[in-house]
């Protein structure tokens, strides 16, 4: 994330020395250049892990994939959330390292407690995985919570990972997550820096302010 930021800054810095009028006139070109820089940053996208071991990454990916599952549309896995989280833990989210270091083993202990002979979240079936994650709900469907011996630290970890997963799924793809804008495709957000009206269903036939006033007045008279 830092890398792509600094690339962008470097790229745009040169412009600030020029007249602002130049910048304005050349905005579309600047935009294209910026986009190009982001693409370049993206193609150097993380293939190497900086914080997690590959075993840990497999577990994180499995948990994230239950938070935003893959169905007929992409989920956290396709959006590369695990790489966003991995990079975050060595950059913008350094303070959460402890939460992950202690939380993942605690969650795995919960796995072992709930499913005899299992020690990894990623080894469970999706149904079993959901059962583990639901054990962190404040209340279960019956309004009662089964008591577990294993640590409460896992709960904080799961909540932190939940937030990171959503961030990694929905952040602007220029900033190290949401690979191929998968998350934005799911929610229907176009990946553009500029938009033009009409924007949506309800404004596409808007007749303009003056006409709208009269039309509404006529309708009121009919009533």
């Amino acid at each position: 994330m830092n890398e792509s930021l600094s690339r962008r800054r470097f790229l745009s810095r040169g412009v600030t020395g020029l007249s602002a009028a130049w910048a304005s006139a050349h905005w579309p070109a600047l935009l294209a250049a910026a986009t190009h820089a982001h693409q370049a940053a993206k193609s150097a996208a993380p293939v190497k892990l900086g914080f997690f071991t590959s075993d840990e990454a497999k577990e994180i990916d499995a948990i994230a994939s239950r938070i935003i599952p893959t169905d007929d549309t992409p989920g956290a896995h396709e959006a590369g959330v695990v790489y966003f989280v991995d990079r975050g833990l060595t950059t913008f989210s350094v303070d959460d390292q402890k939460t992950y270091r202690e939380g993942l083993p605690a969650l795995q202990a919960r796995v072992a407690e709930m499913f005899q002979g299992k020690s990894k979240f990623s080894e469970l079936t999706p149904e079993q995985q959901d059962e583990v994650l639901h054990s962190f709900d404040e209340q279960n469907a019956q309004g009662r919570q089964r008591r577990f011996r294993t640590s409460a630290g896992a709960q904080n970890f799961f909540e932190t990972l939940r937030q990171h997963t959503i961030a990694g799924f929905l952040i602007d793809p220029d900033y190290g997550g949401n690979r191929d804008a998968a998350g934005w495709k799911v929610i229907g957000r176009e990946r553009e820096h500029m938009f033009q009206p009409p924007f949506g269903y309800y404004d596409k036939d808007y007749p303009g302010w003056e006409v709208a006033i009269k039309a509404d007045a006529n309708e009121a008279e009919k009533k």
Partner: protein
Amino acid sequence: MPEPIRYKTSDEVDFVVIGSGAAGGVLAKELSTNGFRVVVLEQGPYLTEADFTHNEVEVLQRNQLTNRPSLQPTTFRKTPHDKARRQPALVYGRMVGGSSVHFTANYWRFHEIDFIERSKVGPVPGAALADWPITYADLEPYYTKAEWELGVSGLAGASPFDPPRSKPYPMPPLPVKSGGVIFERAARKLDWHPFPAPMAILSQPRPGRSVCVQCGFCESFGCEVGAKSSTLATVIRMAEKTGRCEIRPNCYVHRVEINANGRVIGAAYFDAKSVTHIQKAKAVVVCANGAETPRLLLLSTNRQFPDGLANSSGLVGKYLMMNSGPSAMALFEHPLNDYKGVAVSRILHDFYELDPQKVGFCGGGGLDARFDMTPISFATTGYDMGGLPPGTPKWGKEFKATLAHNYTRSLEFVSHGTSLPVENNSFSLDPNVNDAWGLPALRMTYKDHPDDLKLGAFLRARILELLDATDAVQKWASPVEEQEFAYHLLGTCRMGNDPKSSVINADHRTHDVKNLFLCDGSSLVTSGRGQPTLTISALAYRAADRITALAQKGEI
């Protein structure tokens, strides 16, 4: 363009302006244009369009553009009898341009009533409601100047409730969005009077500034194309071009220096390495916002002012007002795509001025339809209100399906209303918590006046009425609650003619110190109806005229 001027701290400049936001930026430009030598000391960094991004994590979660709770902690309590606890209590822009960089850009004028409400409605128990020492008519030319110089899109005459204006807006309204159309139609069904929102965002280009590109990242973000009319994109550049104004970033002012004759001689600040410097000046104008301005005065104690500089009234930091207003969300059948474009395209002011005899409280407000949630905020139930309906699972298949369906189909309806000035509501210095520089942290004391909560219930009912007039397939509203977090920081060094009941006079001069002026949200006597930024900039234009006249007569 020549290199901007640099002064030495030992140069006695004409004015030090502390803060570069909606007020400080304007004063810097006006005073330097009028021939004065000006140094602006800004706490935050000097960022420009090239630095602004759509990075939600950096901007919203890591406070790239705002005060930093980790370094600048705040505490909160409801009343002076409670023990304050450490919690985030406020947000403000911390960069050159201040909050005018990251605000949503709603740009309402105050109306006549805001200046004379006390005379009109009489005393309100539990509130120190007061008339301003100036009227709407006094400020009108400066509203016009702000709208034209900074650049505001809007449609004059579109609202029957608008106060008189000497000139129309300099440019037409921005395009209406689906949310605006839904709002407009529903409001007209109820015989209300919706109109195009006045926004400090360009619908027509200006030299060096692009028109709005409808990217949708207005609230909380800096505009990458200079379309938002922040002081950064406008007057600060004009100030630097005069060759007489230095904008000095990363300067955290912690003391206004005063001599034995009771005159201000400069401002002491920490630079980026926490080294203290004192910039000398003939006069100081504090524009640090409604929280940091009173804090700076309270930090600047001396023998003459043991309770804080210019605080003989004991009112520095008091009468904090932060506007209020509940909101509601609605879901529609078809995509609105309101994530595109500026946050707000239609508003209404039918409830701006209410009759206290009829409604049973003092106050009023406005309504808008908006979509100002970035994708992560929208999906994070529990962060603020989030954009998802209550009861949506926080993860899993149903969470994803709801998110996927709702994001383009959701709309928020927001009310904005008055806060009454209450003496206990205040910013003060926390005796137990320090910031990262070892200075006492801001302590906020706040409990909404009962009338503010009644107004909230009233506006909430109007929102629900409006929602009933739409085709929304689902709707839900936040409850009316006492506030514990401030976006608008108002009233804490109020203006008035009586030195016993106010901190500054109508010229923005402190009653106690002849060459010390204050101008920002702290100057406001009443809160307005929820959008204070234009009034803060208009006051700054007026203050600059007053201060210039005083200086030219040798009366500073």
